[in-house]
C-alpha cells in the first residue's frame, strides 16, 4: 500500500525536524523550537500570519539555510533528487522554453535532453501543458506558468516537494483549479508535500495535517488533522465536514494571532 493511503499514525518517517531554531543578525528570532515529524505521503500545510517563519522553515528544510540550533534529519539520508521546490513566483527561466525549464533538474545532473524527454513530456502532460512544450514563459498565463513550475518540481519524482505560497498571486478560480490538480498529481506520483499558505480554506482543502504557527517569535501553536479521505473533489469545498474543519483552523489561527499580540 502506498504510504499516502495509510492512516496518519502508520506512515514511515521521512524527515525529522527537532528543536530547530533560527536567529537572524543575532537577535531576530525567526523560528523558535520548531519540531516536526514529516512522514511519507503527508500533505502538511504550514499556516500562519505573515512573519511567523513559514518561509524560514521551508528554507531550513530545503538546506538553503542552516539552523542556528537543532537538527533536521532525513531517514536514510538525503539523496540528490529527494527535493523539489515551488516558490510564490513561478521562477521560470525566461530565455528557455517550457520543456527546457522542466529539463533543468536533470540538466544540472548532467543528463541530456534526449535521455529524459519522456519524463519531461510525462510531467508536462500531468499538469496539462504538453501542447505548450515549445512555448516561452512570457506566452503563458500566471496559472500556466505555475503549472510549469510544478512540473519542474516533480519531474524527478522527488520524495518531498516544498511549496511556498505557490498560488497566492493567482485569482481564486485558477487557485481552486490548481488545488484540485495538485491533489491529483500528488496521488499519482505519491510524494510528500509541505505547503506554506496564508489561507485557512486552502490548507483545509489540501492537507491532512495543518501546522498552525504564530509570529514574534515564530513558533508552532497547534497541529490539526483534517480527517477527510482523499481523493477530495470540488464538492468537498461545500461539505459540512469542510466547514467544520475550516472553523477549527480559523479558531486556531485566531488564537495564534491573539498569542502573538
Amino acid at each position, binding site marked *: 500500500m502506498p504510504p499516502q493511503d495509510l492512516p496518519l499514525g502508520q506512515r514511515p518517517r521521512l524527515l525529522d525536524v527537532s528543536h530547530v531554531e533560527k536567529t537572524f543578525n543575532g537577535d531576530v528570532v525567526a523560528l523558535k523550537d520548531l519540531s516536526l515529524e514529516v512522514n511519507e505521503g503527508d500533505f502538511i500545510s504550514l499556516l500562519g500570519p505573515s512573519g511567523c517563519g513559514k518561509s524560514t522553515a521551508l528554507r531550513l528544510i*530545503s*538546506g*538553503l539555510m542552516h539552523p542556528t540550533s537543532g537538527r533536521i534529519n532525513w531517514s536514510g539520508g538525503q539523496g540528490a533528487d529527494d527535493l523539489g*521546490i515551488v*516558490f510564490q513566483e513561478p*521562477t521560470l527561466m525566461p*530565455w528557455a522554453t517550457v520543456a527546457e525549464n522542466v529539463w533543468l533538474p536533470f540538466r*544540472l545532473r548532467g543528463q541530456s535532453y534526449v535521455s529524459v524527454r519522456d519524463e519531461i513530456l510525462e510531467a508536462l502532460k500531468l499538469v496539462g501543458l504538453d501542447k505548450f512544450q515549445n512555448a*516561452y514563459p*512570457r506566452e503563458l498565463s500566471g496559472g500556466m506558468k505555475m503549472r510549469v513550475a510544478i512540473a519542474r518540481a516533480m519531474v524527478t519524482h522527488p520524495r518531498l516537494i516544498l511549496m511556498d505560497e505557490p498560488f497566492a498571486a493567482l485569482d481564486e478560480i485558477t487557485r481552486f483549479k490548481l488545488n484540485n490538480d495538485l491533489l491529483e498529481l500528488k496521488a499519482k506520483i505519491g510524494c510528500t508535500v509541505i505547503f506554506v499558505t496564508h489561507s485557512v480554506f486552502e490548507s483545509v482543502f489540501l492537507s491532512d495535517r495543518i501546522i498552525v504557527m504564530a509570529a514574534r517569535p515564530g513558533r508552532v501553536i497547534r497541529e490539526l488533522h483534517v480527517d477527510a479521505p482523499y481523493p477530495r473533489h470540488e464538492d468537498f469545498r461545500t461539505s459540512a465536514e469542510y466547514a467544520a474543519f475550516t472553523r477549527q483552523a480559523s479558531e486556531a489561527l485566531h488564537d495564534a494571532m491573539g498569542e502573538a499580540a
Partner: protein
Amino acid sequence: MSIAEEAPVTIAGVDVEEQARARRDRIHRIAKWTLPSLVMVLSILAWHLYVTIGEIPHYILPGPVRVAQSLVEDWALLWPAMMITSRLTILALLMAIVGGVVLAVAFTQSKWAEMSFFPYAVILQVTPVIAIAPLLQIYVESAFVAALLCAWIVAFFPILSNTTIGLKSADHNLQDLFTIYGATRWQRLRYLAAPSALPFFLGGLKIAGGLALIGAVVAEFVIGRAGTGLGLASTLLEASYRFNFGRLYAALILISLMGVVIFAIMSLISHLALRSWHESALKREGQ
C-alpha cells in the same frame, strides 16, 4: 441622416476601426523612411543654394557637388583610409568584448578580483583617452597598435560594467533553485548568470560599438598627427591643414556612415539574440 444610412458604419464599426489602424500603420511605415529622406534631400538642396547663391568660397564651405566630387576623385585615398579605421574600430570592439566579458566573469566569480581591479577599470575609464594617447604614442612602437589601445580603452568599460551587473542580476529564487539541485559553479554561470546577463551585455555592446569608433577617431587625431597617416580621421585632419574642404567633408560623411552602420549591426544582433524571450524585443499590439 436616416438610420439606414448610419447602420453599416455601426455594424462594421470594429472593422472600420481595424482598417483605420491598418492604414495608419501603413502610413507610419512609409513615413519612417520617406520623411528623413525628404529632410536630407531638402537640406542638401538648401546647402547647395546657400553656397551657390551666397558665393561662399569652397575653403570655407564646399557645396554638396564639390563634396561628392571629392568623394569620387579621392576614393583611392579614402577607401584604404576607411579600411584602416574600420579595422581599428572592429578590432578594438572585439578586444573590448573579450576583455570586458572576461573581466566581468572574473569579477563575479571572485570578490577579491573585483575589489583589487575594479577601481583601476574605473580610473582607466574616467581618464580622458585624449590625455593617454600621446603617452601610448611614445611607449608603443606601432602607431596602429597605439591607436588600437586607445579605442579599446574607451570601448571596453561599458561592456565590463554592463556585463558585471547582468551577471549579478539573476533571479534570487532561480539561484536558490540551482543551489537545491546542486549546480556547479560552471553550470550556474553557463545556464543562469550568462543568459541573465545577455540583455545587459547587448546594451553595453551597442554603446561600445559607437565608443570604439569615437576612440579610433580620437586616437587617429592624436597619433596620426606624427605623420604616420592612419585612417579616415587622419585623412580628415590632413585635409583641413591643406584647406581641402571637399575631402574633409567626404571623410566626415564616411565616418558618420560607419557610425550608423555599426549602430545598425549592433541593434540587429541585439534583436536577433533577444527576440524570442526578452521584453525589450517584444512588439506589442498597436505600436
